[in-house]
């Protein structure tokens, strides 16, 4: 049982991400790559994900405004977005990406637009949660430091 209150809060926050379905096992696997040589690996990966994928989000937004709808182009963008999102374990975002692609395949314009709004919500929610998590992790410090005797 973690005695450091910040660490405990961090653990609970992290557990909630999995319990509430925001993240899946892939995120854990990224954490396991983090070590003394790469102490901020996960945060760097997540930062890179949001930086890169924001361009895709913009491309999809622009494509949704064009007439007529190019479902193939939308599907291609979302295919790429789904790949990145699954690589950080963004479970809800990945699920919405899959649904969006289903709507593209069936040529359902309204479905695409509705789904994209939900996807953006999940994407933004996860970002806020992870930003708060990494900020708390920095405050809590590394495990070894927290346990080091005075």
């Amino acid at each position, binding site marked *: 049982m973690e005695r450091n209150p910040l660490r405990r809060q961090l653990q609970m926050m992290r557990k909630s991400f999995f319990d509430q379905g925001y993240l899946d096992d*892939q995120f854990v696997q990224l954490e*396991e*790559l*983090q070590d003394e040589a790469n102490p901020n690996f996960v945060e760097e990966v997540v930062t890179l994900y949001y930086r890169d994928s924001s361009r895709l989000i913009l491309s999809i937004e622009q494509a949704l405004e064009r007439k007529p709808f190019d479902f193939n182009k939308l599907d291609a963008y979302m295919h790429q977005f789904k790949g990145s999102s699954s690589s950080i374990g963004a479970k809800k975002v990945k699920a919405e990406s899959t649904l969006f692609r289903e709507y593209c395949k069936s040529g359902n314009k309204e479905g695409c637009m509705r789904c994209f709004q939900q996807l953006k919500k999940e994407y933004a929610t996860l970002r806020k949660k992870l930003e708060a998590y990494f900020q708390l992790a920095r405050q809590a410090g590394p495990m070894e430091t927290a346990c080091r005797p005075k």
Partner: protein
Amino acid sequence: MAPAADEAKSGNGGQIQRPFTFNEIVLRNRLTALVVDGDNFCRLLQQGILQAYGLQTQTVDNGDAAVELIASGAKFDLILIDMLLPILDGLEATRRIRAMGVNCKMLGVTAFSGERERQAFLAAGVDLFVEKPLGPEVLIPILRELDGQYPSI
């Protein structure tokens, strides 16, 4: 051995006990890898993962560059290649690489998940079709196999 259900308890930077963790494997040989992915994030992430295992890893962002690199004589123990690539797609790039007589392990790592895509990629010449993300349960046995191909010192 199948990975256990999620039993991660510790927070960021803590020790996590589970089979097939990224850090469990230690390679005896210096293996080389090529990552072919048009998506900047996925390419860098896969490179980072392979490098964390100790593989010397190069990357290219399109199929044509992959074919050119191999045609120039570059040799790799492992190639990770995406299906959807700019300039030359992953299917054709794989066919051309195999046609050059390259027999190394090739993994088709893609966001596609359909059976049709799987069959197409396997027919093109990849050894394994992997839906993104590439996890240790797939990667570790392959790295062990590749490492074992080299004689023990």
